[in-house]
């Protein structure tokens, strides 16, 4: 968890129930006491992601001194004691977003602002006005675009790896690795907005230096990306680093999945942190 210290870290997930919020809680537990910690969710208006599957989003344990951003209605439902430090004017379906300091520990549901711009504003205030050193953002599943809310942020990618879909996840991780290894640069043909398969096809082959906004704007799969990148130097205006990936394995062994990943750097891959392989 050292890799997360001092950063704004988005926890992104490959899909619903990938284990993102579990990892978020795990990371919180590991980071507590080691850094001035603030955390929030990037869930959109009322998007309490597990609501889609019939259950409320799990509440997060909070402890005195922690700084948290959440909505008015989540605050009203919290059993933790807190003081309000700031309220942001733009309202979501769950009320305005507020920043609070926990006075008495307990549980709290995290809900997030309606847009990336608002998210950026809140993260800036957590790091600036409220002095948070490490900001952890529980991202919505499969929405890397939220990364663009914070310049210089990194992300942890939590993937649910099932045997039948393991190759697709391996490809997604390989793509993320390749994207996060690209360097920042400004010179070249700038492609504003999303790089979709259609737009990628339309870029003339003679253009050898391409500048993209950031990795969240790449909407290509691995083969499409590799075809686009072949023979070209590609840069990002803003770089977001993959800090590491978490693979939650279902019916597939570590060895088998590692084989599929081939040259994915092992130091950037964490297998299910909830697994105990020492035996009982």
């Amino acid at each position, binding site marked *: 968890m050292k890799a997360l210290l001092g950063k704004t870290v988005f926890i992104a997930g490959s899909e619903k129930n990938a284990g993102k919020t*579990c990892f978020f*809680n*795990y990371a919180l*537990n*590991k980071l507590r006491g080691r850094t001035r910690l603030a955390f929030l969710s990037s869930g959109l208006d009322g998007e309490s992601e597990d609501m889609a599957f019939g259950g409320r989003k799990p509440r997060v344990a909070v402890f005195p001194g922690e700084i948290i951003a959440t909505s*008015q209605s989540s*605050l*009203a439902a919290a*059993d933790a*004691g*807190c*003081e*309000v*430090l*700031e*309220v942001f*004017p733009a309202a979501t379906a769950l*009320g*305005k977003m*507020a920043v609070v*300091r926990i*006075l*008495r*520990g*307990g549980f709290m549901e995290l809900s997030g602002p309606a847009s990336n711009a608002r998210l950026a504003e809140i993260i800036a205030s957590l790091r600036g006005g409220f002095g948070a050193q490490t900001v952890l953002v529980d991202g919505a599943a499969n929405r890397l675009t939220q990364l663009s809310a914070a310049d210089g942020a990194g992300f942890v990618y939590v993937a649910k790896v099932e045997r039948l879909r393991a190759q697709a996840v391996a490809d997604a991780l390989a793509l993320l690795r390749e994207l996060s290894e690209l360097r920042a640069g400004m010179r070249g043909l700038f492609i504003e907005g999303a790089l979709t398969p259609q737009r990628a096809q339309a870029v003339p082959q003679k253009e050898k230096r391409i500048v993209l906004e950031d990795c969240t704007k790449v909407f290509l799969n691995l083969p499409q990306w590799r075809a686009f990148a072949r023979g070209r130097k590609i840069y990002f205006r803003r770089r977001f680093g993959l800090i590491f990936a978490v693979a939650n*394995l*279902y*019916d597939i062994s570590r060895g088998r999945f590692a084989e599929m990943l081939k040259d994915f750097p092992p130091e950037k891959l964490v297998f*299910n*942190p*909830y*697994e*105990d*392989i*020492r*035996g*009982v």
Partner: protein
Amino acid sequence: MKTFAEFDWLLGRFLPRTPYGRAAKDRLLFYSSPKELEGEFGLTEAFISFAAKFPVRADKLEFHLARIPFIDENAPPDCAALFCLKKFLLNAKAAFALLPKPLAAALGADWRLEGLLKTLSRGEGGENFHIDDSFSPELVSVRREIAAVSAEIARLRGRTLARLKREHSLDFSAREFIVIEESSAAKLFGNPDFFIEPHDSSHVVVRPVFGAQYLELCAKRDGFARAEKREEAKILSALARGAARHLPEMRRCAAAVERADILLAKARLAAAHGLTRPVILKPGAAIVIKKGRLPPLEARLAAEKLRYSPLSCGFSGRVAVISGSNMGGKTVALKTLGFCQLCLQHGFFVPAEKYSAPVFAAAHFAGGGGGEVAGLSSFGLELHGFMSAWKDADRGCFILMDEFARATNSREGGALLSAIISAFCAKQGVYAFVSTHFSGLRAPAAYYRMKGFDGAAFSGHGGAAGDLRGRLRQINRFMRYELAPDSGKAANCDALEVARLLGFDGGIISRAKFVLEGK
């Protein structure tokens, strides 16, 4: 008019700090009362001298204004709403205290909400807000119970986790559950310390079970937490009711905040861009502009390192017709007048050494640039623009027309423009500034022309050459962007010279001269 005069340049730099000020900016009052405007200018002047004399206090004032949130009178009574109210009061009080007494009195910024602020500040003097124990003894009691039972839960949980680690080597300290191979977990099956469920075909999820006492304690804590919420809700409602009793005073306070914010922003704008107080004239008096500037153009030219010439002119009548060379500055002259007049009408200082003008009920750009109307040609759009302006003619109206009827034949266009100018002259409340290339207009207006290209100065210079940028630089250097009364003697003969300077084909220019001379 705003688009033509590039007035957004000013609005983009006019930066009120409060939500009240920003809402007022969006409403952007168009003053038509000289008395109200004099009041606004007087206060702006007072804020300018306050900010110049006490820069630190002015910065502090801006700091507190920037921290003032919007108070939603219909917000539900919760901690967030009361936080906003407290933050509003705290910063409004600090802002009012920074204002010099005469200014505070003029804005109605006298502080009368100390009682409400004190109530909201129990237990916390800063902007932060929480429901302090001191609000109710019941709250103290229930919170004490929560603290006691929470401590008991933590002890029990800690003891259980330590025992599970000791007895089974399973560390749940940072994990809510552990995933282990089913074969390894076999000996845990049936153990009441664990809840086990499948993970996949070969692994299980193991969760610690803390026991009945733990559940009872959690239920007890939940019960106390609900009681705390009920008590807090009572306190919040009482606080909200208390605040509602001060509503008229709070509205008065918000109005004073808005005025202070707007005036400070206007003062900052004036100081940053060298704006001066305009002089309001009686209806009928002629407009005078001395070294009037069009700041967006001035900035563009400065970026290109090109010379900028401010506009000076004492107009001799209400209706002025401006002619002159191509690229000679007619349109800029109109834009400058429009910019200054809009500043005046919206209560801003003006970018001029001196600007004197009456106040109007409306200001119009009667040209084709006011957007698209389906089915209308550019000439149709010009007519449409004129008709919109003409509706306001009886109320007193400031009108700009830039090369009206340029898109129709010159004979009819000139006749139509003559008639329009005559109509303007006949309406006492209308002030109009009309740029045109038409000569021989027959209307009783005051006629002016831009001095145009200084051929004498240029002839000694040696001719034009280079790329378009260089050629534009030459034009800028030798064009005299000055407005002077038009005696009618000078002919509009700069078009061919300008064409030559822009690098136009010399043969074609010679042929044109030949035609012009009637050969």
